């Protein structure tokens, strides 16, 4: 939006006619009503919407956390529709990285081990490469690796969560309100880091947010309301 991102090569996310219906008792809730969306490799896109707009549902579907009701969803060429639980687990292991609003670090492990366990789950070596060490430096957490989450500030925890989200070099990094629990200073720092990460490494990032200020850091914003892209 504000600055042009890296050169767009090919769409990495393709969504066509995506719907999601939840059943709460006897009530049908249409969380998504025919969403169409295309995100190119290397883009930093913000999905902006108010609470209840369906943005979190879109996040969960794109991340393989919940299945769609109907429609076509392609992530890096992999069709999510009709995927089994095991296939969705594999997608999360290999193709998608997550950053959550509440950081969601494992409290019993150090920052380093929170990242390494994801490498372990992804079947990769748990030794950090020099390139990844550079990323940790960029995130400003290289010297905080031995600390447990409770010994880190919210901003530091979120930066560890970002490092965890990209350690397995996923095709896309999904961030759900990544600054929702941070003060304005830390929010700005985290968003700037995500932008740097996108520009320096070409990491595709899809950020869900309700905050236009946060969305301004993305290269493109997509607005969602009542389960539809507007």
């Amino acid at each position, binding site marked *: 939006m504000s600055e042009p991102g890296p050169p767009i090569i090919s769409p990495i996310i393709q969504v066509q006619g995506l719907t999601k219906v939840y059943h709460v008792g006897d009530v049908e809730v249409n969380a998504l009503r025919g969403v169409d969306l295309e995100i190119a490799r290397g883009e930093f896109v913000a999905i902006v919407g108010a609470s209840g707009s369906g943005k979190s549902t879109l996040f*969960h579907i794109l*991340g393989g*956390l*919940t299945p769609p009701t109907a429609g076509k969803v392609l992530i890096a060429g992999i069709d999510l529709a009709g995927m089994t639980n*095991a296939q969705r*687990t*594999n997608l*999360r*292991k*290999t193709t998608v990285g*997550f950053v*959550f609003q509440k950081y*969601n*670090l*494992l*409290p*019993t*492990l150090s920052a380093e*081990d929170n990242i*390494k*366990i*994801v490498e*372990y*789950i*992804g079947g990769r070596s*748990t030794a950090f490469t020099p390139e990844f060490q550079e990323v940790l430096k960029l995130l400003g957490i290289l010297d905080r690796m031995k600390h447990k989450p409770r010994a880190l500030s919210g901003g530091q925890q979120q930066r560890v969560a970002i490092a*965890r989200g990209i350690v397995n070099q996923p095709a896309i990094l999904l961030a759900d309100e990544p600054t929702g629990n941070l003060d304005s200073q830390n929010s700005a720092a985290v968003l700037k880091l995500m932008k740097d990460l996108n520009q320096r490494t070409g990491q595709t990032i899809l950020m869900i947010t309700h905050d236009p200020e946060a969305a301004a850091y993305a290269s493109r914003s997509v607005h969602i309301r009542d389960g539809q892209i507007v």
Partner: protein
Amino acid sequence: MLNKLILANLTHRPVRTLLSVLAIAVEVTMILTLVGVSNGTLDSTKRRAEGVGADIMVRPPGSSVMASLNSAPMSEKYLGLLMQQPHVASVTGTVIESLTFPDSVSGIDFDSFRKMSGGFTYVAGGDPVSDDDMTVDEDYARQHHLQVGSKLKLVAHDWNVSGIYEGGKLARICVKLKTLQEIKGTPGHLTLIYVKLDDPKLADQMAEQLKTTLHDDQVYSMAALEDMYSVSNVGMLRDFIGVVIGVAVIVGFIVVFMAMYTAVLERTREIGILKAVGGGPGLILNILLRETLLLALLGSVLGVILTYGTQWMMKHSVPASLVQETVYSWWPIAGAIAIAGALLGAIVPGYKAVKQDVTEALSYE
């Protein structure tokens, strides 16, 4: 990496971990103590029987190894009859009055007993002189704080301790045969008869021969009798151990079920995180089962150590009542039982963890 997470999980809640380990340890100790006491008590009985120096024992009809011997159905005339048999060098008879299990008072003919066994080795005092005198072994004296000259009342009779002897022969409490026969109201009758042969190699052959002579099949060579002093040959004990093992497995199951169920509930969000970053059901189950296995292994090791504690306590508080042996062959068995019970207890919590919805788990507070 996974082991690091498991260790971190267990140390994160040290009290719960400690209690789980302790409960599994108690389960293991319970099994090992029971087996140890069963074996120890039987071996102690066997050793005391060996200490008599006899080659053959004649027991009352219908008696069994573990049942308390209390009746005195055999006439003393058997002694004369047995002495007339070939190869019989000496005989001695005893009468037994059971006290609270496993104690009993044995009435013996000290002269014939000495002839057969060499008699007791006294650490203080000596054989009874008067009818009210009693001798006890060191363990019994220590447990009941007795010394020569001490008075005590047993089988409704006042006794005076005349001697304290080294244990390992016949019985822990001995009085004169005639006195106990009169107290029991069975004068001229015996509970057990010990037979010493001039050639111990003939014991089995002579035992068979005596069965015919005495019209009784409760005649055993001491070697045959010693074989019977094993847990596997005592049905009642075998069944009892089986019941205790069953109870132990249930205890282990409940403890681990509670601990892991609580852990799964408490770690709902963490399980959600692991699933979100690509952890499958296998990984989640693997973590829980490894945690359980570690708890069970630690519990088993602690259980074995605690068994030495119960052994020490029995030796120092009730040395004359129960003897507990260390039965090494049961260590892996008790450990396997504890592990099996623990793994059973982890199944339902594990299933719950695997089935947890990842989005719900991530929003769990």
